[in-house]
C-alpha cells in the first residue's frame, strides 16, 4: 500500500436485497486528499454504498478497494473514520470514555489517547462536557462527538454520512471548518449530504447517483462553471435583437424588459452587452447568476420525488 493508490476504488459494486436492487453499479475512484461529494435523492443507494465500502454490508457482486485493501477487511479500516447517518452510541458512557473506548478499538494505546481525546473534544467544542454521559447530550452534541470519534486515528479517509443533519448553523460551520482542515492535512473526505450548500463550499468533486448508479461525476468547479444564468434588464428591445441573442445562448427567455439567458462562458457577457447597445437597446443591468448546485442536482437526477 503506498500513497499513490486511490483512497477509494470500486468496480461494479452491486447490492441486491431480495428482488430490490439497492445499488445497481457503483464504479468510483476517489483520489487521496480529495473532498468527494456523493449526491443523490433519498433511496438512491448512497448509504448502502457507504456501508459496502466500510464492510458493514457485503456486496452482492463487484469489488472495491479502500486505501488499497479489499473492502470488508479489518486492515482496510485501520486508517478510516466513519460517522454513520443514524449515529447511535453507547449512551451510558461519558464523552471522554466513549472516545477512549473507540480509540482503543482502533488499536491506539492509552498514552496516545490521553493526548488525542482532549484534543478532539476541544476540536468539536465539547471540552466542557467531557464528564457528561452521552444520554444527556443533545442531537447536535452527539453528532459532534460522533465526528470526533471518526477522527480519533488521524484517518486517511473519512466517511461522513449526512454529518450536518442535526446541527444548528454554528455546528454546520464547525463541520465545514473541520472538513477544510482535513483537506489541508491531505485527508480524503467522502461526504454524503443532502445539504447541497455544504457540498458546494467543501467538495472538490461530486458524483450524482440515481437508482443505485452513478450518473455523473465531475469536478465541482467545472460543473459550477458549466452554465451561467444571466438576467438582463433593458428597454427598447426589438424581436430581431432578441433573435440575435441566440448566437450566445441556446435559450432566450424574454418577458417585458427582462431577458434570461444561459451562457456556457463568462466571456460572452461583454460581447452581449456591446451587441445590445449597438442594437439601440437601453441596458439597465446585466446580472450573471451562477446556477446553484441544487438546480444542477434537479437537472441531473430529475425532479422525481425520492423514496
Amino acid at each position, binding site marked *: 500500500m503506498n500513497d499513490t493508490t486511490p483512497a477509494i476504488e470500486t468496480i461494479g459494486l452491486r447490492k441486491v436485497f431480495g428482488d430490490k436492487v439497492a445499488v445497481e453499479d457503483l464504479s468510483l475512484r476517489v483520489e487521496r486528499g480529495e473532498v468527494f461529494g456523493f449526491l443523490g435523492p433519498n433511496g438512491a443507494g448512497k448509504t448502502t454504498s457507504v456501508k459496502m465500502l466500510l464492510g*458493514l454490508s457485503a456486496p452482492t457482486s463487484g469489488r472495491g478497494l479502500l486505501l488499497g485493501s479489499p473492502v470488508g477487511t479489518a486492515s482496510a479500516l485501520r486508517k478510516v473514520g*466513519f460517522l454513520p447517518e443514524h449515529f447511535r452510541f*453507547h449512551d451510558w458512557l461519558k464523552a471522554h470514555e466513549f472516545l477512549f*473506548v473507540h480509540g*482503543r*478499538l482502533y488499536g491506539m494505546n492509552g498514552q496516545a489517547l490521553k493526548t488525542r481525546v482532549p484534543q478532539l473534544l476541544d476540536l468539536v467544542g465539547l471540552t466542557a462536557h467531557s464528564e457528561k454521559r452521552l444520554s444527556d447530550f443533545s442531537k447536535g452534541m452527539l453528532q459532534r462527538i*460522533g465526528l470526533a470519534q471518526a477522527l480519533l486515528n488521524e484517518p486517511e479517509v473519512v466517511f461522513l454520512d449526512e454529518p450536518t443533519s442535526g446541527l444548528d448553523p454554528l455546528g454546520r460551520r464547525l463541520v465545514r471548518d473541520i472538513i477544510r482542515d482535513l483537506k489541508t492535512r491531505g485527508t480524503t473526505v467522502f461526504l454524503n449530504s443532502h445539504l447541497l450548500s455544504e457540498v458546494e463550499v467543501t467538495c472538490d468533486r461530486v458524483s450524482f447517483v440515481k437508482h443505485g448508479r452513478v450518473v455523473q461525476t465531475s469536478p465541482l468547479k467545472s460543473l459550477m462553471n458549466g452554465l451561467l444564468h444571466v438576467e438582463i434588464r433593458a428597454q427598447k428591445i426589438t424581436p430581431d435583437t432578441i433573435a440575435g441573442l441566440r448566437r450566445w445562448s441556446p435559450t432566450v427567455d424574454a418577458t417585458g424588459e427582462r431577458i434570461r439567458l444561459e451562457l456556457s462562458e463568462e466571456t460572452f457577457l461583454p460581447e452581449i452587452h456591446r451587441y445590445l447597445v449597438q442594437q439601440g437597446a437601453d441596458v439597465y443591468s446585466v446580472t450573471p447568476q451562477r446556477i446553484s448546485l441544487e438546480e444542477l442536482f434537479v437537472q441531473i437526477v430529475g425532479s422525481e420525488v425520492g423514496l
Partner: protein
Amino acid sequence: MRTVRIIAGLTLREAVRRKIVLAALLMGSVFLTVYAVGFYYINQDMTREAGVAPLIAFKEMRNFILMAGLYVVNFLTMGMAILTSIDTLSGEISSGTVQTLVAKPVRRWEIVLGKWLGFVVILTLYLLLMGGGVIGAVLAISGHQAPKPLLGLSLIWLNAVLVLNLSFFGGSRLSTLANGVLAFGMYGIGFVGGWIEQVGWLAQKQAAVHVGIVSSLLFPGEAMWKRAAHELQTPLVKALGVSPFSFQSPPNNVMIGYAAFYAAVVLLLAVRKFGQRDL
C-alpha cells in the same frame, strides 16, 4: 484478543452503569436474607424437636430446603442470562450502535466473543453469589453440606451458558422480542420435556420417556438442572426418589457432553451469522 478484552470490558461496564449489577446484588441480598432467615427458623424448630424424629430425617430435610434454594437460583441465573443478553446483539444492530464498532479495524467475531465473555463473567459471579450464598447459609446455620456442591453449581452454570448462547444465536438474526420468545420457548420445551420424561418413568410409559429425551436434545438446559439436582441430592433420597428434586433417570455424562457441544455450536452459529449479515 485485544478487541475481545475491550468489548468484554465494555459489556461489564454497561452492566454496572445501567444498574444491572446493582439490582442483581440488591435483589440477591434480599433473596439470600429471606432464605437464610427462613432456614434458620426451620432448622431451630427441627433441632428443638430432636427427640421425636430420627437424626437422619434432619439431614434430608436440610438438604431438601437447600435444593429448593438452588432450584430458585438455577431459575434466576437462567433468567438473568436471557434478560441481560437478549438485546445485546439485536438491539445494537437495530439501533445502529454496532455500526461504529464494526467500522473499526476489528473482526466481527471479536465483538461477539467479547460480549459473550462479558456476560459469562456476570453470570458466573451471579451464580457464585447466589448459589454460594444458599450453600453457605445452610452450612453456616446447620453445618449441613450438600454433596458435590461444585459439580452441582457447574451444571447450573452450564444451563445458564446454554441459555446465554441461545440468546446470542437468536440475537444475531432475530429482533429482540422474537429472540426473547425463542429463548424462553426453547427453555420451556426442555423444561416440560424433562417433567414428561420423569412422569413417564414413574408411570412406566416408554413413549413419554422418549418425548422427554427428544425435548432434552432440542434444548438440554433443564437436563443439566436434573443432573445437578441428582449430584446435590443425598444418597438416601437418590435411592428412594421421594423428592421433587430426585430424578429416576438423571441425564448421563453423554448428555452433559452433548449440552456443552450444543452450547458451542449455537455460539458458533451466532458468530457466523453476525459475521455475514448486513449491519
